[in-house]
């Protein structure tokens, strides 16, 4: 496949996981803030939205990483902006995978304390993905 098509594919696929992980963290944060006794069903709704956003984001990240590896000729680090991109990308990818698996295994049985720790890590992951996306944009638009 022509390289420019992979570049477009990477640009297209990579925004889904970034947006979904950020949305997931936001949904979970709102779900945590809503008082449980007053808005139980709404809280569950936000948790479910957070869960599905995270799982879809994690699945989408595989396509984004794969297309990114193709256009960088399978360089895992590189230099310049590519190195900046990868510095944030690999920790984010690892954390995202771990969070998705944790959430799949634990389901709705997480204690409040464990879920707060999870949410903290999810927010860090969202920030890392945002930073990876920023440097990816710098790489594609400004070299």
């Amino acid at each position, binding site marked *: 496949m022509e*390289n*420019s098509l992979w570049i477009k594919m990477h640009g297209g696929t990579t925004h889904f996981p970034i947006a979904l992980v950020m949305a997931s963290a936001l949904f979970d944060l709102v779900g945590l803030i809503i008082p449980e006794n007053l808005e139980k069903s709404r809280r569950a709704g936000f948790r479910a939205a957070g869960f599905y956003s995270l799982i879809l984001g994690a699945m989408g990240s595989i396509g984004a*990483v794969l297309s990114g*590896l193709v256009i960088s*000729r*399978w*360089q*895992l680090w*590189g*230099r*310049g*902006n*590519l190195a900046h991109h990868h510095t944030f990308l*690999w920790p984010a*990818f*690892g*954390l995202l*995978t*771990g*969070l*998705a*698996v*944790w*959430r*799949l*295994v*634990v389901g709705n*049985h*997480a*204690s409040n304390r*464990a879920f707060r720790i999870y949410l903290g890590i999810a927010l860090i992951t969202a920030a890392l993905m945002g930073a990876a996306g920023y440097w990816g944009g710098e790489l*594609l*638009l*400004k*070299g």
Partner: protein
Amino acid sequence: MSIEVKGLLLGLVTALGLLGVTFGLSPLFQPNKTTDANREQQANAASVASTDVLQGDAKRGYGLFDQSCAPCHGDDARGDEGPSLYNLAKSDARITTIIKGGVKGEMPSFAKKFNDADVQALIAYLRTLKD
């Protein structure tokens, strides 16, 4: 063992496994790994010698090239994803246009990254690349 700890362990194993597979397999897909390694070795040896003699704009241009252009044009500027930049038969104006405007679908624009002085420094470095 609580389900949270089980989830944590499984999550860790999966994340490290996926990263391990990615980092393990990627080198196998890298094109002409041996050739590239030899070429990089030669380029490094050459660049140590050649960058020593670079001065002024050309030396600064090499720094800019190394940071922004080498990922595509190769550490030795002999081409990788992008073409070789040795023996360029293009005018300074044409090179400036390409650097600032990019090449659609092939090379990004560097207009926001490099000012006129940077482009001149890059051109000064490119003019030293002759066989």
